[in-house]
């Protein structure tokens, strides 16, 4: 297990680079933690709000002797925010009693979600598959990557000179072709498997 609390002192000092390093390791368990809410709240919005709150409250978090204090705090905050959003929209949120919830959050914080460090072998395989995409899907994929979540799809589509639906269809195609290409090379980027298998296959 990776203890992301190693970034806490720098986070407390307002170091954004340290926050970026914390984000690289914390995003996946936090997103996984919100899975039960996928049908009831917009998880992407709840997750981003949770991450912003983690940044704001990091200076107040004190390690309690166990790993991942800030991640555990953020998991709880994300859960509470999702429940609150679901109630606000008058939707039925999945509920867990206090003890079951604590056990679940602890388990998520303790799971090994892979190294937050980029995997050069996986990156090479993805790059190879990306380069093999037909032009329009590849452009759609690259445009969204460049936008980095800071630009709405209609604006990206307009930048590419495409109608929104055309852009989205190209993006869907890129995602599907990329996944198929990676699968052919032994990379299963499904929801539970990691890149390790592919990396091992790639290693001579």
């Amino acid at each position: 297990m990776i203890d992301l609390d190693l970034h806490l002192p720098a986070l407390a000092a307002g170091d954004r680079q340290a926050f970026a390093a914390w984000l690289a390791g914390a995003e996946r368990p936090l997103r996984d933690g919100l899975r039960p809410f996928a049908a009831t709240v917009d998880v992407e919005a709840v997750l981003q709000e949770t991450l912003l709150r983690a940044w704001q409250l990091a200076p107040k978090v004190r390690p309690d002797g166990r790993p991942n204090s800030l991640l555990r705090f953020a998991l709880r905050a994300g859960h509470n925010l999702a429940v609150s959003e679901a109630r606000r929209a008058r939707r039925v949120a999945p509920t867990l009693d206090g003890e079951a919830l604590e056990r679940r959050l602890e388990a998520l914080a303790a799971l090994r979600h892979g190294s937050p460090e980029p995997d050069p072998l996986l990156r090479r395989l993805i790059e190879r598959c990306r380069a093999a995409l037909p032009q329009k899907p590849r452009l759609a994929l690259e445009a969204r990557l460049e936008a980095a979540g800071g630009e709405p799809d209609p604006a990206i589509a307009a930048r590419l000179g495409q109608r929104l639906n055309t852009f989205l269809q190209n993006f869907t195609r890129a995602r599907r072709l990329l996944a198929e290409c990676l699968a052919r090379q032994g990379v299963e980027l499904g929801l539970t498997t990691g890149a390790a298998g592919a990396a091992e296959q790639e290693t001579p």
Partner: protein
Amino acid sequence: MTDPRTRDALMEQAAGAWRPRRRDGGVSSLPAWHDLDEGGRVEAYDAACLARRLEAALDSEGLSTTARAVLARLQG
């Protein structure tokens, strides 16, 4: 019932990382997400999980577009 092409387009938008801002600066949900049925929302969640892993794998700092969007919000 939403036709399949419209549903796919909504799902693809909802799987992206861009989200509007609230007046108070908070992160708002995406209108396209609200137009999806429950199955489409779960599909969008799964597609986002996969997309973020790919994005993080391609990024020199291991950051997805979600992480990049959050960092950009810190800059104001």
